[in-house]
Structure formats: structure tokens, C-alpha cells
């Protein structure tokens, strides 16, 4: 069979296949779900109650600014991946972050510190309530592995450079630098320009 014939037959088979596919698709397809068009699947039901009894004689434990700082460490659970502080006034019309914000205000009014508030959220939602992993256990790998990898890379690089240097003929160290070449100002300017072009 000639190549052109083969290509022609492939095209014909392809057309038949497409028509069959089209007929099949018309039978069972349904409109795509809204999730296809949304930026993410928002879970408006994700909020859980985080409440603790106020401490005896409790007063507001921190300023609004400090409270906002605490909210920045707690992740909204709607699926947006943002923290509570940012999410509650974003575009996503989230109902979860305002609910979490109300819980935080209640805990602040109950006299709880920022760390106690964060711990309360971890108790209810698990560690995924935090915007960053705790510095403990397996999580230490998250923080230290990049540094360790870069350190190892640096050592490997230094080793590589040393090996490359050892290969070099020693006379290279004595090569005159451009600054030690004598010449008139005009010649030096031309040389500099030529070197620049070569760079």
C-alpha cells in the first residue's frame, strides 16, 4: 500500500469514528456542572463552631490589629486557600470566613490569647486550620529540606568548581588582566569596546 493511500484510508476511518462518537455523545451528554465555570468549588457548609467558655472576668484580650494578625494565621475552610482575614472581604462571597471571624471575635472577647485561639481552631478543624505547618515532627522537613538541598547543592557546586580548577593549566593564573595591557587611551577604549562586543 502506498503512503498516500494509507493516509487517505486513515482519514476516512477517522471520519467514520468521529461520526460514531458524535452520535454517541448526543445520547448521553449533559451540560457541564457549574464547577467548570467557577474558580473553585466553594464549600459553604465547612464552618464548624469554635467556642470556649469565657475566662473568669474576661475582657477583650487584644487589639483589632492583633486579632487581624491572628486571623492571618488561620485558614478559611471554604476551599479558597486564603486566610480568614483576607477571605472574609474578598470576591468569593464566602460565608465560612465570616463565621470563623465571629468565632475569633468571641474568643478574643472571652480573654483568649492569639495562640489559644489558634489552638482552639486546630482542635476543631485539625492542622489544616493553619496557614503554615507547625514547626514540629514531619513538618520540619518542609522547612529544612529546601535549606538542606541548597546547602548540598552549594557543596556539590564548590566540589565541581574545584575539580574544574584542578584541570586547568597552572599558567592560566598568570594571564594578564585587561587592565595590565598597556596602550594609549584610544586603544584601551577600542579594546574595551571590542571585549564588550564579545561578551
Amino acid at each position, binding site marked *: 500500500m502506498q*503512503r498516500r493511500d494509507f493516509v487517505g484510508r486513515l482519514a476516512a476511518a477517522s471520519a467514520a469514528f468521529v461520526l460514531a462518537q*458524535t452520535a454517541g455523545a448526543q445520547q448521553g451528554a449533559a451540560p457541564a456542572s457549574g464547577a467548570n465555570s467557577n474558580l473553585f468549588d466553594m464549600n459553604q457548609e465547612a464552618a464548624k463552631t469554635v467556642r470556649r467558655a469565657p475566662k473568669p472576668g474576661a475582657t477583650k484580650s487584644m487589639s483589632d490589629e492583633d486579632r487581624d494578625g491572628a486571623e492571618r494565621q488561620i485558614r478559611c475552610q471554604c476551599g479558597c486557600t486564603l486566610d480568614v482575614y483576607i477571605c472574609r472581604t474578598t470576591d468569593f462571597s464566602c460565608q465560612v470566613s465570616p463565621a470563623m471571624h465571629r468565632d475569633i471575635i468571641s474568643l478574643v472577647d472571652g480573654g483568649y490569647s492569639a495562640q489559644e485561639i489558634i489552638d482552639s481552631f486546630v482542635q476543631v478543624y485539625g492542622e489544616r486550620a493553619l496557614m503554615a505547618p507547625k514547626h514540629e515532627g514531619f513538618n520540619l522537613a518542609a522547612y529544612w529540606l529546601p535549606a538542606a538541598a541548597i546547602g548540598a547543592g552549594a557543596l556539590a557546586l564548590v566540589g565541581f*568548581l574545584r575539580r574544574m580548577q584542578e584541570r586547568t593549566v597552572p599558567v592560566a593564573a598568570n594571564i594578564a588582566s585587561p587592565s595590565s595591557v598597556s596602550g594609549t587611551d584610544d586603544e584601551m577604549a577600542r579594546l574595551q569596546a571590542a571585549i564588550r562586543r564579545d561578551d
Partner: protein
Amino acid sequence: MILIGELSLWVALLMTAWSAVTSFAGGTLGREDLITSGRRGLYVTCAMVVLASIGLWDALLTHDFSLSYVASHISSNMPKVYVFTAFWSGQAGSMLFWALILSIYSSIAIWSANEKARALAPWACGTLACVLLFFIATTCFKANPFERLSFVPADGKGMNPQLQNPGMAIHPPNLYLGYVATAIPFAFAVAALITRQLDASWLMLVRRWALISWFFLTIGIVLGMWWAYVELGWSGYWAWDPVENSSFLPWLTGTAFLHSIMIQEKRGMLRKWNVVLVVVTFLLSIFGTFITRSGIIESVHSFAQSPVGSWFGAFFFLATGTTIYLVATRLNDLEARATLESMVSREAAFLYNNLVLVGIAFSVLWGTIFPILSEWVRGSKITVGPPFFNTVNIPLGLLLLALTGVGPLIAWRKASTSNLRRQFAVPVFAGLFAGSALIALGMRNGHALVAYALAAFVTGTIAQEFYKGINARRSIHGEGVVTATIRLIARNRRRYGGYIVHAGIVVLFAAFAGLAFKKDHDVQLKAGEAKEIVDPLGHRWRFVSQGVSTSETLNRFVTAVGLEVFRDGERQGILSSEKRQYYDSNKQPQFEPSTEVGIRTSAKMDLYVVLAGVNGDTAELRISFNPLVVWVWIGGVIMALGGLIVMWPQAERRRAGGYVATLAPARELEAAAAS
């Protein structure tokens, strides 16, 4: 037209398979007819994918709601421009768009390489056809935009209002143009590995493609940041979301490659490393797509839980395995024959820069996939958000900024002490002066201080390099400053275009550091009420509410609040922020309400007002002061401009009759020095 488009897609699938098989067979057997057939197969594939794309655009523009993709992504009352951009706003359309760009890129690359690199061309063509086969097959079988509905709805679902933004119209195409361009260097790297032609010649072929990829990724990333800032309403532009990270990863390794390629060109070093960077850049593009479209990582962006994820995963592991095998079996061919004279040299500085760029890429990748690892190891999901990425990457970013200034100051081969002293004096002084001045002015934020001092240092480096170059031209040719500057850049686009990119990086870092001084305020205002706030620079702002209003335009209901703004008693005008509820052609609400932020931009600071909600006649607002944000966009433009200069084709230099400097071989230089 739609049927033609659909048919074309299936024909493209067959043609690309044909192209892959015949190209590899032709390369193996050395048969010119098969090689030619493979190449033509690629061109036909391109034509077929173009036809398929026209078919989809036709379906969108004629509102053919019998197609599931059209019904799911547009509605009849949408502006035409967003109907057009709906092509890439959904999963299936974006896959076809990816195939479209790849087929066009591949055809251009193979057409231009056919003369320059005949030995590599069939293998590169076969590799590109394989990549294209994957994308077209995924489009045909897993995300087909021509899939039909069992009924024809009266109207479509419409597009998410957050995507109905000029930034979103051009941000994804730029990212795709950048992602897809990584396939061309990858294909030529594979071809070079297969044929064992691993000298610098294949690098010449791919350098421009690597630049194209870098250029579009840069524009795409910055446009994405701009879109997030003006559209999402969270007063920031980068959240270290997995989708953002996915675009950043190939940018980092691509940038590393664009630096290390120079060392192989000039010194013959880093042959293995350059191959690895090219391959890794492509694989990171695929891996990023895999993790964000498979649903294994939560992302604020779309495509989660989509069926194409597993296909991307399989393709990623197949491509990784193949390239690991090729590199492992050709290690001897990749052995560098060059030597290094000093660890204080331009080439060594490039390597340090590569280490930091790849280090940042690793830390970003590690942070992105750590939630999956944590779930595997501990069984519990965790979040790795901005606090983690900032902790790990800010020091690395500052180190990279420092190296941006150091590299150009060090001579190739070996830098003498006097050379270093002479070169570093001005930039170091600039950095120390800036740092001291900022401390004297009361700046106490450590990261910001270091960032600004380093920015001044790098600016000093760039200014010094331009000053020397311009002076040399003026001295030789007697040109004026402007002419000398233009010709300096035009005659050495790679070098001075690169410095312009560095200038863009400096501006970006300065803008990033400005966010350390950002201030937010939550405010509730009834009509006529006023609120006074002091911004981070000490200016006193007064906001007077003009009340909440409602209106109806085109395809949405609008709730808006107007604020009359005064700064230090001087009226600045009215700033408006809106909540929009989009509706379909039956006036039924679509999607969640979205926010239209009120932004007043100045060189020093953005005033950013978000209407968080309306409670009776009270508007709940978040008012933010975001220092230096406009410089992020300016820095991006400068980087793109520098990239364009570097990419711009340069005619062969005509030196006849002019001064020609030829660097003497090392032995001659040694003899000259001894005498």
C-alpha cells in the same frame, strides 16, 4: 463549520501519530522520504488543529448551545470579547488552545531547523509530534470541546464574572505561549541526546525558543498578578497558590537556563546541566498542569478534579523516565571539556545564580507538594500557605537579587583583586548609602531594608555598566549620549537587554518590599458619614460616604458605594466600589456576587477600597493602603521590554574595515605578560 472543526481534530490526531512514527523511523533508517513525510505530517496536523480551533470559535461566536462547552462557558448576553476568550476559559477549550499553540510552534521550529540542523530535525520533529499527540489525544478523549448535549438549552451558563476581565482575556494565552514554548527546547534536547550531538550547536537552535518561553511566562505571570489584584479584591497580587506556583516553576528554571547557556557557549562547560535544565523546565510545565488539573492539590483556580489529571500524570512520568534514560546513557558524551580558572569569575557567578534559582524552584515545588506528602506520611491534610513560602523564599530572593548585581561586575575566566575593587566600588557605595539613608529616615523593617540596599547595589551595577559602555562608544565614535546609548543596546542586545531585565527585577523587588508597609482598615459608613485614616506615609485621608446606590447594566445588577476622598484636606475625587450580581438572559442570577474594587493609583501608594457588603444603608468597606504596587506592573513591563530586546534578531556584524579585537590564546597572553 463545527463538524469540520471536529473532524479536523480527529484527523489531526491521526496525522500527528503519523508524523511521530515516520519521523522516528526516518531518523533511525536515514530515509529522507520518511523524514519529509513526518515533517509534512506535522504541518498538516497544524492546519487541522487550526481548523478545529476555528470550528470552536465559530460555535462560540454563533452561540451554538448544542455543544456542552459552549453552553457551559458563555451566555447570549455576554460581551463579544469574552465570548471569544471563552475558547481558553474552560478545560476542554484550553486543551485545544494548548494544542493549537504547540502545533504552530512546532511547525515553525521544524521548518526553521530543517536547514540549520538536518541531523536533529527528524528526532525533534518526532518528539514534538509525540507531545502534540498527547495533547490532541487528551482533547479528543478526555476533554473534547465538541462534545454535544442531548438537548439544546435556550441559553448558556455564562462565564464566571471574575474571568470577564481584560487581564484574564490575555493572561492565560500568554502563560500558554510560555508553557508550550518549553516543548521546543525539550524536543531539541531529546534530539541531541538521541543523536549524541551534544556540542553547543543544539543550544543555538533552542536559545530563542527558551527566550520566547521566558518572555511570555513573564508577561503571563505579571498579568496574572494584575488580574488578581484588580479583580479578586483581596488587596494582594500573589498568594503562592499551586496554580501560581506552577507558572513560576518553569520561569525559574528557564531563567537559570538562559544564564547557564552562556557558559556553555563561551566556555564549553555545563553540558549536562543545560540538558537537565531544558528537560526540567518542560517537565515542570507538565507537572504543574498535572497537579493543578488532577485535583490532588487544592487550588483557588479552576480545573480541580478534572479527568485530564491522570493523563497528565502518566505523560509526566513517561517523559521523565524517557529523559532520565537518555541522559543516563549519554553521560560520557555530556562530559565537559572545559576548565575553570577561578571561583571568582563570571562563569562561577552564573553557577551561583543557577544554584539559587534552582534552589528557589525546589523550595516552591517542595512547598506545593508538601500537603500531599504530609497526607501520605501522616494521614492528615495540612496547608502550606504564604507564611511558609515567604519564610523560605524571602532570604533566597534577596540572595538572588544580590547575585543579579554581582555577576556583571566579575570578569570572565578570572577576576583580579584590582578588577574587583574597581568594579564593586560604586555599586557597593550605592547600596550602603541607600541602606544608611533609609535607616536614618526611620525604616526598621529588616527585609525591606536589605531589599532596598540590594536594589540600590544592583542599580549601581547596571548604571555603571551602561556608563562604561556609553563612554567607550562616545570615545571611539564621537557619538552623543542618546545615540551612544541606543547603539550600545542595539549592537549588543543580549548583554544590555539583559541589564534592562535586571533593572525590571530591581523595580519588582523594590515594589515587593513596599508591601511590608501595607495597612488595612475595616470601616462601616452610612450615607454622609466620614472616616479619617492616616496612611503609612503619614498623610491624613478622609472618606465621606455618598451612600449606597443600585443600578442595572448589560448583564448585571450593581450595588455601589461612592466615597468622596480627601488627602491632607485636599479633595482627590470620588472613588467607587461595587458588588455585581451577574444574570443570564432570563435575568436569573448567575454565580456568586463579585466585587469591583475601587483603586486610586499613584507612584507611592495605591488606595484600594473593597465593598465587603451592605447592611441596610450601611456600607461595610475594607480600605487598604498598598505602597508601591504600581511598580510591580512597571517592573514587569521593563522586564518584558528587556526580554524583547534580547530576543530581537540581530544581523551578522559587519566588521570589514573596522577595528577587530581577537582575544589571544592563553599561552600567547602568558608570554606577553612575561615579557
